[in-house]
């Protein structure tokens, strides 16, 4: 989340037209690929990046006579998502067929849900930078299957119209999807992006999806309209298939600008699907007629309705890992972490887990949090490596913190050692020993050095004895110079005073 979230009442940029204020209304439809082992309605493995059409079977190729069988794990994951979003779980939920022809859709219908979805009426409290919460209503959470992937060869458009030929890869076809539909509660592109960021974090936390926008395991469509404040909703357009957080925000900004300028020019907005081109920054409108589908939904007769009882819901609820908001509160209450650190650690489940492990091993939660949100996160962010792949394990970091705690390392040296640990994957003790980096905390050794320096500098010694405290730093500098900075500062201070006092 960057740039800060403006309060709802003022919407700089997006909402002001020449003829006065416009209010922007945004709702998001998020498609989440579930990370189940097998597909939604057959036993093919869910994969990414395999040879085309190798992860297929008669069922997911839509061969005549085949039948779908619902993946229980997918239903469980979907229930987990719905519960985490505070939805009411339907006791009786039904799959419907959504009928349309397209080459990536083997049965020429998608098994989806319609008027009896799994979850209804939830809410996601989106946390703003100032720590305040901005509630976004969740209309529904439903299950469906993914389509295959088309590759268009030749032609300039990159779309099926105008291509020389098109190929279909059905490996993705039948992958379990959950669609999360929000209420039109967002008023700025930044809010939409914040909602998306928070939802992504939540899904990651639930362990139900890879949530990778680039690989398409998280996809976002936005419904957007503008109106005069207080007026009824304007005509909306649907902004499709934006595959990064940045494009969501930029696409929305471009489309809002287009709508406002059209309305300012006295034109009307036509309900349509629009595409955002991230390269040119421009919006292309597909004519509404071209896209006018009547999906002829009807209940899928090949699947029995799913009856969900209280016991099942409770079982799934128990499997839902602690949610970010609750975790943040616990980190503040139990570990005494500042709200900022707690928020960062709670928003990212693997990072939070990492932190808890370091805190447990080191016994110093605040110090652990400093290192995990500081040096470790900086490294992970700059390299794009996930925390679970970090070269420094929680055990290794705790080992470093122990050396810091017992005075072997100064803060500065600890940072240097940490860099070496990141590069080599070795533990702190081995690096310290090998490089002779440990602080000199040996009283006898230090006293010998101090005695020699005091003896060699009778002038400053006399000045100190006459009450000039400042002279102490001269002696510290001398000792540090001679020990290459490895003298334990606290011990040095103590011993110097003793010797200077005579």
């Amino acid at each position, binding site marked *: 989340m960057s740039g800060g979230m403006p309060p709802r009442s003022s919407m700089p940029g997006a909402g002001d037209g020449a003829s006065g204020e416009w209010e922007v209304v945004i709702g998001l439809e998020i498609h989440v690929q579930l990370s189940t082992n097998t597909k939604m309605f057959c036993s093919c493995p869910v994969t990414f990046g395999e040879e085309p059409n190798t992860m297929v079977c008669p069922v997911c190729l839509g*061969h005549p006579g085949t039948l779908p069988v619902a993946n229980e794990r997918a239903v469980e994951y979907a229930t987990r998502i719905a519960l985490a979003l505070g939805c009411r779980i339907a006791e009786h939920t039904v799959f419907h067929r959504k009928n349309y022809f397209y080459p990536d859709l083997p049965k020429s219908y998608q098994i989806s849900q319609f008027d009896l979805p799994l979850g209804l009426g939830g809410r996601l409290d989106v946390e703003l930078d100032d720590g305040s919460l901005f509630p976004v209503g969740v209309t529904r959470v439903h299950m469906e299957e993914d389509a295959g992937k088309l590759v268009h060869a030749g032609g300039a458009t990159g779309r099926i119209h105008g291509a020389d030929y098109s190929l279909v890869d059905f490996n993705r076809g039948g992958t379990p999807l959950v669609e999360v539909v929000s209420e039109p509660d967002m008023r700025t592109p930044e809010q939409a992006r914040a909602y998306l960021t928070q939802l992504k974090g939540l899904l990651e936390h639930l362990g139900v999806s890879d949530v990778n926008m680039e690989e398409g395991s998280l996809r976002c469509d936005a419904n957007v309209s503008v109106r005069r404040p207080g007026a009824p909703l304007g005509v909306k357009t649907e902004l499709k298939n934006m595959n990064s957080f940045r494009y969501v925000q930029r696409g929305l900004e471009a489309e809002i600008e287009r709508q406002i300028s059209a309305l300012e020019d006295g034109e009307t907005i036509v309900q349509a699907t629009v595409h955002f081109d991230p390269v040119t920054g421009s919006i292309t409108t597909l004519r509404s007629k071209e896209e006018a589908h009547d999906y002829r939904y009807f209940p899928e007769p090949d699947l029995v309705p799913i009856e969900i009882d209280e016991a099942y819901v409770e079982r799934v609820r128990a499997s839902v890992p602690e949610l970010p908001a609750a975790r943040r509160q616990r980190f503040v209450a139990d570990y005494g972490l500042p709200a900022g650190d707690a928020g960062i650690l709670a928003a990212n489940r693997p990072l939070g887990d990492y932190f808890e492990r370091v805190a447990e091993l080191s016994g110093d939660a605040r110090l652990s949090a400093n290192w995990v949100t500081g040096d470790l996160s900086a490294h992970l962010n700059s390299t794009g490596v996930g925390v679970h792949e970090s070269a420094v394990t929680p055990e290794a970091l705790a080992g470093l913190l122990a050396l810091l705690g017992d005075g072997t390392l100064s803060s500065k040296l600890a940072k240097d050692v940490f860099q070496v640990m990141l590069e080599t994957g070795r533990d702190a003790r081995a690096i310290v020993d090998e490089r002779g980096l440990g602080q000199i905390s040996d009283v006898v050794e230090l006293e010998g050095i101090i005695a020699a320096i005091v003896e060699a500098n009778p002038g400053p010694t006399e000045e100190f004895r006459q009450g000039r405290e400042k002279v102490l730093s001269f002696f510290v500098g001398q000792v540090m110079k001679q020990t290459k900075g490895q003298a334990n500062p606290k011990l040095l201070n103590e011993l110097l005073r003793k010797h200077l006092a005579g």
Partner: protein
Amino acid sequence: MEVFSLTARACRDLLGSGEASATELVDLYLDQVERVDDRVGAFLLVDREGALAQAAAVDAKPRAERLPWEGVPIALKDLLCVEGMETTCASRILKGYRPPYDATVVAKLRAAGLVLLGKLNMDEFAMGSSTENSSVQLTHNPWDLERVPGGSSGGSAACVAAAEAPWSLGSDTGGSIRQPASLCGVVGMKPTYGAVSRYGLIAFASSLDQIGPLTRDVSDAAALLDIIAGKDPMDSTSVGLPAPIALPTRTDLTGLRFGVIREFLGEACEPGVRRVFDGAVAAIHAAGGVCDELQLPSVEKGLAAYYIIAPAEASSNLARFDGVRFGHRSEGASDLIDMYSRTRSEGFGEEVKRRIMIGTYVLSSGYYDAYYTQAQKTRTLIADDFRRAFGQVDYLISPTSPTVAFRIGERTQDPLAMYLSDLCTIPANLAGLPAISIPAGLSDGLPVGLQIVGPHFSEQGLLEAAYAVEQGLGLSDLPPIAEAAR
């Protein structure tokens, strides 16, 4: 061996006693196909080589190690997928289609050791009541070659009537097993919805389709049902049967009450059919059963509800035939939409197109509630009517078809007259009930069937009752083609 005297049980016994080898049996039926099928037209595909190879494998096994039905031949309606064997639903759009898998019932037949003779003609995608909607060929009624065998499982019924196979499998969506069984003078049974897996049955209307046996007598129907029934993890709507099906033994109907469905004896019912039906009622009385007329007020709306629900589901089920992955694809299309349009225009026949259009229409936004929702309500009312009726009687009876076999071409120009053929059979599909048609006698030399409908999962009892009626009627008529074959 006289092929017309053989039931599947008789085949089993000949194999068991060693009086015939599996190869001899297969040869016997292949010879009969050779002799009569140019006139009957039941088979779309005869797998001579495959059947003989299968038979040879059975013969190579010591008799003691064989399964009870191992080596008994069977033929299949051409909408059951057999791995690698052309399966077309008698449609141009699936010409050359070889499924990459076996239907669950086919796997069960294989596991039981039955020998697959080939694939049988049908109305295209099971849409029709005369098998005249096959895009490949006509099938002729073995009792009168100028007449239709009924449909849509016309090939399945005709092949058993002409003794081209001891038994066969068909599918029943609105009467497609029972009506042709009635018109061809054989036994046809539609099990309770969910008793038999639909996996590998190329769907017409998913919520109505059931696979079932067509046989020479009730005992064979029981035996074949036992082989094919069962819950299947590949079909979420399958539940199987409460217990294995035993061969029926009941001959006395004392204590059983039969309800005669008054609505099915109206003016649509031919006098000759009525006469044979009354004879069957008398036979039930004679065997100790009680028959009472009763009313099922909603069943008359069954036809209307059926012709909304079945096309609605079909319009969606048949959408996968788009030329992209298998089957027919039109040459020379200019773009994607043109490819879809040409492929489907060329690939589907008139009746299939009619039903796809009806189905598409009734599911369209603005019409859905008026048609589809109303039809589903009617379906519930019909199920309620049956439930009430089964509170009063054990089984319901009626003629299976209001008419005997009609002449080829007689109804092809009048879809509504054709649709009336299934008046008596459709309600059991809408309510998901088991129903059987058994031969009840002849009217002017043409077979008339008696339909018996039971409560859900009452198959064993239904077969026992049907067996008792069959014994009481004691029919032994053979179609003229049997005489001609001698």
